[in-house]
Structures are given as C-alpha cells and as structure tokens.
C-alpha cells in the first residue's frame, strides 16, 4: 500500500496573447504523470531544468494547483481542500528546499523556525516545545546552542540540516526534497544525505527526492523516474534505469555524467558522441508530432521497468548498455 499516489497529474499554465488577451495555448509543465511512493522509501525524480520535476513536488505539497488529476493520500483525493484538512495532510507532508538561505525566514531564530510547524499543528507548552526543538537539532547533528541563532550565522550545509529538522518536526509521513544538496559542497552533501537516511530509518519517512544529479539519486533511491518536457520518459528500479536504459533521453543523460575514472575518458566521449548522433538522427521517433513524450510502455521481461519507447522498439530485448 503506497503512502501517496499521483494519478494522471496535469499542471498546465495558459499562454495568453493576441489583441483580446485570450488563451493561445498552454505550457504543459506537468502532462499526465503517474507515480506512487511506498512507506519508508526514497523515490527519485530526475530531470534537467525546466523538465517540470519541481512542479510535481510543489503540487504534491499544495503550493501549485493541479489542472487535472488527483493525488491520493490515505485513499482520498487531497487536491480537494476539505480532504487535506480532514487527513491533516499539511502536517503529514513537508518540504525541503534547495536554497536554504532564502527558504528560512532571516528575521527568525532557529528555535522559532523549527517550532513553527509544531505550533501550527500541535499544542505544546513552552518547555515541551523547547525539548522537542533540542531533540530535532540533535537528530541532524546541530548543537543545542544553535536554537538562539539566526539563519545567516550558519553555513549552507548547516542551514540545510535545519531545514530537515523543521520538515521532520511534525513527524511527517512524506518529505518532498527539491534539490536538497545541489547547492552544497561534496563533503557537506554527503553529511546531509546521511542525515536524510538516518531520519528515514528512525521515523519511517518516505522521501520524494527531486534532483538533476544522477549520482545522488542512484545512491539514495530504489525506484526512480526520468522526466523531460513535463512527462516521464522512463520509470523503474535503479538497476533498470542505470544498467538497462531504454529511452534515448535516459541514455543521453547517463552518457553525459562525467566518469571519475580518467582512464575511461576517450571511451566515454566516444559513447557520448554515439548516443548524441543517435539522438540527432532519429529524435523524431522518440516523440510524437507535437514533440510530446510518448506514452510509457512496459519493457518486456520486467514488471518494474517502463519506458516511453516507440511501438517498434517496445519489444526490444533487454540488453546491456
């Protein structure tokens, strides 16, 4: 039983123009997307800038309104305000943002920042609240003294940990983490990712990890999807996607990741150019005439792997990279 299920989600923005400022068309930020996340798992959502991945995250937490489709939580559609209230959805689903400086109120002390969601959803006495904040800071490895400081007094990695503490404060079931480590240095990134795994184990939290970094997602996620142009091009387990990519877009992404073995350099470049040539030659085959990503089809020989491949390709045997 999944913790959350996104069904046929569409988020379209109207483009207005012309003399009467009428709707000329739509930007389809998210165009018919399905996904479901299991309790306690980290689900990966990979895409480049403008792919619509952040819009999905924002729609799940309710910052954006869907054009159509539903988000099912505990069996009910939480795109309806009534259900959100009844199910305490806003307490159970929290978010971590990329830019920790602009997402933490600069005029508030850490104490108040972390306690804010608690105050919204629970009635605790001052001492209970203080106790909880200290506990939360401890979980993300911050000293208790940080309670009385302001966000600017911390480094990027520390702020991101404060953001995690805030998100965890209401004991959520799901945290949407939108590029949580992409602004951080490598060594700090490692620390934040470790803390995310720790709290996941401790509280059985599910994560939706939105990232452009294929390395981070491979490290964190069992299941993931690759997104471009508002649609999923490929969905599967990490082995499905990284070892047996089917869609040309996935292959391009994988070929583009720099390899940390300098001996593979020539080979990597050659592979990249090969994929790039393949992409340029029959790009059209992978998209319909409106440049829309095709519908997902099951990849033969697997019940976890789906790819938006053309008809003729759908029966292709699963082969190595």
């Amino acid at each position, binding site marked *: 039983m999944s913790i959350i299920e996104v069904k046929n989600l569409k988020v379209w923005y109207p483009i207005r123009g012309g003399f009467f400022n009428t709707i000329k068309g739509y930007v389809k930020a998210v165009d018919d997307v399905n996904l479901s996340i299991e309790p306690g798992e980290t689900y990966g959502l990979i895409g480049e800038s403008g792919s619509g991945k952040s819009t999905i995250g924002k729609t799940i937490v309710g910052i954006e309104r869907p054009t159509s489709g539903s988000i099912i939580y505990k069996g009910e559609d939480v795109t309806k305000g009534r259900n959100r209230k009844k199910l305490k959805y806003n307490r159970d689903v929290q978010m971590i943002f990329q830019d920790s400086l602009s997402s933490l109120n600069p005029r508030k002390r850490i104490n108040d920042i972390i306690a804010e969601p608690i105050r919204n959803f629970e009635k605790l006495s001052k001492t209970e609240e203080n106790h909880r904040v200290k506990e939360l800071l401890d979980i993300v490895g911050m000293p208790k003294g940080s309670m009385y400081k302001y966000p600017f007094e911390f480094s990027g990695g520390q702020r991101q940990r404060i953001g995690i503490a805030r998100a965890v404060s209401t004991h959520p079931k799901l945290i949407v983490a939108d590029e949580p480590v992409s602004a951080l240095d490598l060594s700090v990134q490692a620390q934040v*990712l*470790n803390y995310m795994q720790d709290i996941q184990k401790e509280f059985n939290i599910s994560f939706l990890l939105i990232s452009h970094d294929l390395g*981070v997602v491979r*490290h964190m996620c069992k299941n993931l999807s690759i997104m471009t142009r508002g649609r999923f091009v490929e969905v599967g387990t990490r082995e499905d996607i990284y070892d047996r990519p089917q869609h040309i877009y996935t292959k391009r992404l994988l070929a583009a*990741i720099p*390899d*940390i073995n300098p001996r593979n350099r020539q080979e990597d470049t050659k592979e990249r150019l090969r994929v790039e040539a393949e992409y340029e030659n029959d790009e059209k085959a992978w998209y319909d005439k409106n440049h829309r990503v095709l519908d997902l089809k099951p990849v033969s020989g697997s019940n976890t792997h789906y790819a938006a491949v053309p008809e003729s390709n759908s029966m292709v045997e699963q082969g190595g990279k």
Partner: protein
Amino acid sequence: MDKEKDNVLLEIEHLHTAFRINGKFYNAVDDCSLTLRKNEIYAIVGESGCGKSTLATSIVGLLDPLNSKVKGSIKYRGQELVGLNADEYDKIRGEDIGMIFQDPLSALNPLMRVGDQITEALYYHTKDSEAERKKKALELLKRVGIPDPEGTFRRYPHELSGGMRQRIIISIAVACSPEIIIADEPTTALDVTIQAQIIDLLKDIQKEKESGIIFITHDLGVVAEIADRVGVMYAGQLVEIGSVFDIFEDPKHPYTRSLLNSIPQAGELGDRLHVIQGNVPPLSEMKRSGCRFAPRIPWIPASAHEENPSYHQVGDGHYVLCTCYQTFHFQEEK
C-alpha cells in the same frame, strides 16, 4: 631545455592574494605556485571558499584594487603580471589570456546584442575593419556550435538558452586566439547534457589552438573528464598537485582522499557516505601555521603533521603538502 622553456605559458610563484575584512587583510590564496604549459588543461579543484576563484581572478588582475592585495609572481611567457596597471593589463586580457565565467547570463550585458559583445573583444586587439570583425564573429559562433550564427549575432542574451550563452562566452574568450584560457566553473550552472557538450567543446578548442587552460571547478567528475594536471586546493593552499592519474588513482593528501571518498558511488543502496568532520574556518579565523587540514582529521596525532608544511615529491610531478599523508588513515580504518 629551450623547448621546455618555450612550452611554459604561465608561471605562478608564491602567490598570495589577500582581501580586506573589517580593515585587516587576510590571505585567501596563501603561497600557491604552479606552472601551466602549452597544450595542457590544469584543473584547480576545491570546495567553496578554498580560494580557487580568487587564484583565477588574480591571474587576470580582475580583483578590486581597493580591497585586495596580490603578492608574489605571475609570469606570462616571462612577463611579470603582478603590479601591472589597468592599461597594461588590458593589452594582455582578451588577447593573450581569455576568460570564461560561471554564470553565462549575468556575464553578458543584457542591453547589448550578442554579436556586438563578440566583436568588442576583437576591436581592441586587432586592426580589423568592422566587416572583418563581423565575419570573424560569425565564424566563431559557428565554431562554438551555434546553429544559426547570422540570427544569433543579432540576438540579445536573454533570448538564448543557458548552453548557448555559455558558447557565446567561450567565443568571446577565444576570439583573439589567446594562448591561455582561464575557465572559472564554466559548467556549474548548466544541465549535465549541456555540461558534457561544453566540456567536449573546450577540449576541442584547446587541441585546435594548442592553448593552455586553467580550469577551476568543484566537480571531481569534470576534473577526471577534462584535466591533464590537477591542483587540489584547501584553505588557500594547493595541498596536492599531480597528473590526473596521480590524483584519481594514487591520491596522497588526506583531503584529496577524503573528497574522493565522499562521492556517491554505484555501491549498495543506503551505504553511508564519507563525511569530513568539522568545517573550513572563515578567512579571518583561519590558523596560519601548521597543517590546515589537521583539525578535520583529529584522530591523526599532531606529530604526524609538519610545523611548517612543505611540499614532498611522491612521484614524477606529484607533490603533497605536509607529512601527514604518510600516516593518514580514515577513522573507521585502524
């Protein structure tokens, strides 16, 4: 021997670059030396605040003269650059040394057509007529892989994508075929597929012009992809210098080893990543004596470090700062 001398493009010796913080000067680059040769991509890798961008900016003399001080020597083909005035530097910048920046949108003037921004570089270093400059600019646009050079020439920066803008920046940097290109995090703001294209483009241009590139980055993957030589920078110092194979296959300095260890790898799901303890102290609080990495590896005894760390040669062209590399082990290893 002469051949070797001919190959040396840039020789940096004991460079110190200091910034004024609350009235006092603190070294952001602290005694760095390196040599860039022809046909070589020299990567400087380190985390934010380590001084790598300051090092790059010092070379081209683009620091704010009121709030910074540069000491030491930067020689371009034997000519000393430290101490040049703005006019003298203007003759070298753009002509002998080109520069590529991190954020291609803010690095282009929003009110000027792309073409004019490219021809501007030619105007000050060539005697070309306007028509010749335009012809060259169109060739450059074609060379850096812009699909519609004529149309792009007339466009404004905001009308182009991030990858296209970075190609424009590259075309500006190489307009006068400089011998040296300084690239400061040129792919950080780009998507991976675009990053790969830009890396391939830079490699091609480097080969074609036989230029030397100083490539500043925080991304070890990019280093492995592009660099010939690597300098690993920590707290204003180059803690390890070596060929790209030295650094990735036989890293010596504890910092290099720790960094490589914290990259998420293809291992088992949920493996814990390696974390480097503590933080880099801010410039004004940094201890200036002893091994600067020592506080981050407290389980290594003080006796393992040098009092005044010096470079130790561990291989052909492979140098490490401080003796602590000899006894270093990760905390979990006994």
